[in-house]
């Protein structure tokens, strides 16, 4: 169903649960999205919203137990990933789908030289000899902007700065020229200046290699300039899904609006304190029956506490999980007109 | 109001830990065995005396001794070389063994907690120096020194202040008892090092928190801050570590008793009973097996309980 229309990854109704002492934690509960070849998808949400778990599920990297993919379908380039034996999944991991993790400080093995960690990927997947793998590793390091790659390749991770380590991670991930790159908060642990450099690097490499990218972040500001479309996640659910431009212009979900308001905007509101969504994300182990965002929502009504909201289709590519999705959408449109008028 | 919140949070922390502990079957097993063992050891000898007429040393009142009699209805664990009832001896020995374990751990607790808390709170150069000393003592093969200590100061040579303590708390002029008091200190003084490290680490992470700063601002003395504010907050790890110190101390006591340096006649511990039993292992195996088994079961339970407590009180770091 997917190969023909250029879809590289399609996730439908994915459910990943964790069995804990507190009961079943539904970290991901019925997520669906699609990614076309060459596209970049942003997945946005606060910590604990299930965005990382979704992507670990795609790689089948959920620890079982306590985790368990309880339902749904993940189709990668026509392959049913959840139905594959684990040996076949390993042939995809690192070769066709690669991942960059949040914390470059802990994601590289502190006991092994960088060279070893880079070489083992291509030796495994591309059948490189030691020499080939070494040369390739040097080439990859140069590509991610490590200038003195020949000297640095023999170092251990702790001899690199955070930003450099993330470059190494990216080099490692792109070693086998994967079709899909999943970047899980690749800049969160880094300094602001380094953040921009790393994002620029990912953008640049994506353009050069034609890789599809999933960019996971809690910061809408990060995905704005990079992605084609965005999935907003909250409490294991998709709250809103839309093309990037539309989501930023006319959000149809109060949660997205809150997120957008909390992005620092240097052009406006100078000197004003940054907006923050009140309250904390809910405990996914004990979700109330209604909308999980109800307690923090600015336009909450009685029904929100009582009934789970519907997934409303605003237009062809725009969906929102809210009892009042259309109302919020109209509201956003009006605000948009007003601010445009100001300008 | 704020204080209320603290208290609620505090109690629920302990209640959660207790709940987690009860979920751990092995820890509960250990707890139950230890409780039964404690009751048996405390009340067992008296019950045996009342029901069978054996004295605390397991000698029948009529003086009718059957030497090395195998386990039977009258003597469930048989009798020893001198004809004393093994069950009575084992229960009696348990009193000493557990006492040595608990009191020595207590000694190590007092020394280790004070040392670690003071080093951690004062910090800087003093902390550095105090911890270097601990490192150095760690490197010393302390067991050699304990052996020398117990053998030259054992028996008649017990130092005066130890005899004084033993006379005051135990009974006057009892040489065997003062040897046991020697053990308390010898074992306590060699097992405080790790405790000091554990407490220091805790104090280091606590000392900059608000409640300490607040106490300091309101003029609480350094001593007060350390012992009234910081030490109570290190209780979790201290309990865990103390629970694991008891079996290791008991093992060392058994080892010393085996060498003839620990508990001595007329007193007996599981270690000294087992070491007596070894002589006759091929002919009268029960003389080794029962004290050995009882001791192993107790240590087993203590270790399981300690493991369980660590998992319950410190769910994040399930380290060794």
């Amino acid at each position, binding site marked *: 169903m997917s190969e023909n229309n250029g879809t590289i990854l399609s996730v439908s109704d994915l459910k990943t649960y964790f069995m804990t002492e507190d009961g079943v934690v539904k970290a991901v509960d019925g997520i669906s999205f699609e990614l076309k070849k060459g596209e970049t998808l942003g997945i946005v949400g606060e910590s604990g919203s299930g965005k990382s778990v979704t992507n670990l599920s795609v*790689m089948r*990297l959920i620890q079982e137990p306590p985790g368990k993919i309880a339902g749904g379908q993940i189709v990668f380039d026509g392959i049913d990933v959840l139905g594959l034996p684990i*040996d076949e999944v*390993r*042939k*995809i*991991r*690192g*070769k066709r789908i*690669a*991942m960059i*993790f949040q914390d470059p400080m*802990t*994601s*590289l*093995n*502190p*006991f*092994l030289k960088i060279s070893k960690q880079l070489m*083992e*990927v291509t030796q*495994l997947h591309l059948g490189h000899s030691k020499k080939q793998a070494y040369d390739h590793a040097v080439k990859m390091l140069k590509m991610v902007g490590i200038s003195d790659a020949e000297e640095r390749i023999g170092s*251990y991770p*702790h001899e690199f700065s955070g930003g450099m380590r993330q470059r190494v991670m990216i080099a*490692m991930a792109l070693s086998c020229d994967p079709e899909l790159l999943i970047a899980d908060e690749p800049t969160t642990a880094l300094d602001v200046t380094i953040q921009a450099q790393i994002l620029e690097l990912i953008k640049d490499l994506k353009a050069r290699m034609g890789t599809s990218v999933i960019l996971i972040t809690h910061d809408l500001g990060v995905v704005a300039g990079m992605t084609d479309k965005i999935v907003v996640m909250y409490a294991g659910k998709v709250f809103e899904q839309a093309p990037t431009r539309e989501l930023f212009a006319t959000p149809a979900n109060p949660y997205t609006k809150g997120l957008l308001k909390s992005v620092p905007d240097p052009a406006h509101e100078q000197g004003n304190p940054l907006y923050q969504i009140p309250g904390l994300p809910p405990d996914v182990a004990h979700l109330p029956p209604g909308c999980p965002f109800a307690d923090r929502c600015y336009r909450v009504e009685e029904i929100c506490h009582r009934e789970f909201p519907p997934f409303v289709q605003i237009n062809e590519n725009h969906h929102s999980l809210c009892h009042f999705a259309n109302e919020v959408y109209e509201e956003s449109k009006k605000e948009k007109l007003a601010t445009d008028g100001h300008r | 109001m704020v204080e209320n919140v603290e208290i609620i949070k505090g109690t629920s922390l302990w209640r959660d830990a207790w709940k987690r502990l009860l979920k751990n079957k092995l820890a509960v097993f250990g707890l139950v065995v230890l409780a039964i063992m404690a009751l048996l050891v405390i009340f067992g000898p008296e019950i045996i005396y009342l029901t069978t007429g054996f004295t605390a040393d397991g000698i029948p009142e009529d003086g009718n001794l059957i030497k090395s009699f195998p386990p039977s209805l009258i003597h469930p664990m048989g009798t020893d070389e001198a004809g004393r009832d093994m069950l009575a001896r084992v229960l009696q020995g348990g009193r000493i063994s557990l006492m040595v374990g608990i009191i020595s751990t207590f000694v190590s607790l007092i020394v280790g907690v004070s040392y670690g808390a003071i080093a951690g709170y004062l910090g800087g150069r003093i902390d550095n120096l105090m911890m270097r000393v601990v490192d*150095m003592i760690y*490197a*010393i*093969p302390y*067991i*050699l*020194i304990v*052996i*020398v*200590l117990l*053998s*030259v*100061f054992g028996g008649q*040579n017990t130092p005066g202040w130890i005899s004084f303590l033993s006379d005051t708390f135990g009974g006057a002029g009892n040489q065997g008892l003062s040897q046991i008091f020697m053990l308390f200190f010898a074992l306590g003084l060699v097992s405080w090092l790790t405790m000091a490290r554990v407490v220091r680490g805790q104090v280091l992470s606590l000392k900059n928190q608000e409640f300490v700063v607040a106490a300091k601002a309101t003029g609480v003395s350094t001593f007060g801050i350390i012992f009234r504010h910081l030490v109570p907050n290190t209780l979790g790890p201290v309990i865990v570590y103390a629970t694991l110190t008891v*079996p290791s101390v008991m093992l060392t006591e*058994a*080892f010393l008793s*085996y*060498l003839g340096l620990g508990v001595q006649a007329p007193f007996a511990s599981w270690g000294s009973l*087992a*070491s007596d039993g*070894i002589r006759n*292992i*091929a002919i009268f195996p029960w003389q*080794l097996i029962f004290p*050995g088994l009882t*001791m*192993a*079961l107790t*240590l*087993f339970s203590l*270790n*399981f309980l300690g493991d369980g407590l660590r998992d319950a009180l410190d769910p994040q770091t399930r*380290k*060794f």
Partner: protein
Amino acid sequence: MLSFILRRLLIIIPMALLVVTLTWGLIRIAPGTFYDSDKKLPPAIKANIEKKYGLDKPWYQQYFLMLGNVTCRIKGTDEITENGLQFSLAGYDFKCLDFGDSLKYQGQSVNEIIRRHLPYSATIGILAYLLALMVGLSAGIIAALKQNTFWDYGSMALAMLGLSVPNFVFGPILVLFFAIGIYLFPPARWGGFSAVILPVITLSAIYAAYIARLTRAGMLEVMRSDYIRTARAKGLDEKTVLLRHALRGGIIPVVSFTGPALAGLLAGTVVVERVFAIPGLGNIFIQSVLNRDEPLTLGIVAFLSILIMIFNLAVDVSYGFLDPRIRYE
């Protein structure tokens, strides 16, 4: 690194002196001497002996004499000892680490006694630790990989048993089962390979147990870490993830345990040597303490302290090979 080793080696000297001083002090403060336990000697002979060992001098002179013997001092002109390290420097004859003669074993030097009895203890000690490493590491790794299965529970229960049964109980039971039952291993006699096996098993049990628990905990912790997730995300199979990526971090706790284990092994050999009637250093040490054979006790304490501290240093150095993040300043 070299300066680190040198500095640590230098620290060993005052530490060993501290231990020796402590031991000497304990022996001296305690009432009674070697001669009390022996038959009453005629005063003239006693005075003679006391003169020979310098016991007629004030205590501080005796102390420095002892220190000089244990460390280094200029050889007296009338001394004809060949013990310890001897060398000439700037026209003086020096001797080091000469622990003197035993009081009990007349005419035998402490150095000679140590040399004679050390091999027994060293053999079972080293073999026991190697066995403990082999058994403990494999049991720990298996338990960690098959967490919460029969293998995990089984090996951890066994390990707990190993921690809870005193070795002087375990040894005789082993003997009872094997030696007397099967006539396979000769009990209580040193000689040949087979007689070593039971003492080695007895001694290793508790360390195998410790190491198994440490390995399991260490491996479980490492297997949860981010870099293992990275390794899996690369498509490596579990065996490679385990052996190439997890093992080194996982066994670091085992390496740190080696220091305390060495000190423990020392105590262990004392017991095992007694259980199996092995004429090792541990046995001799206990005898010397009970006999109040001061030179022998001091010599063994000094020798073992230095040995253990050197081993501890070796352990610390080996960290550096295991963990590249460690720097020796």
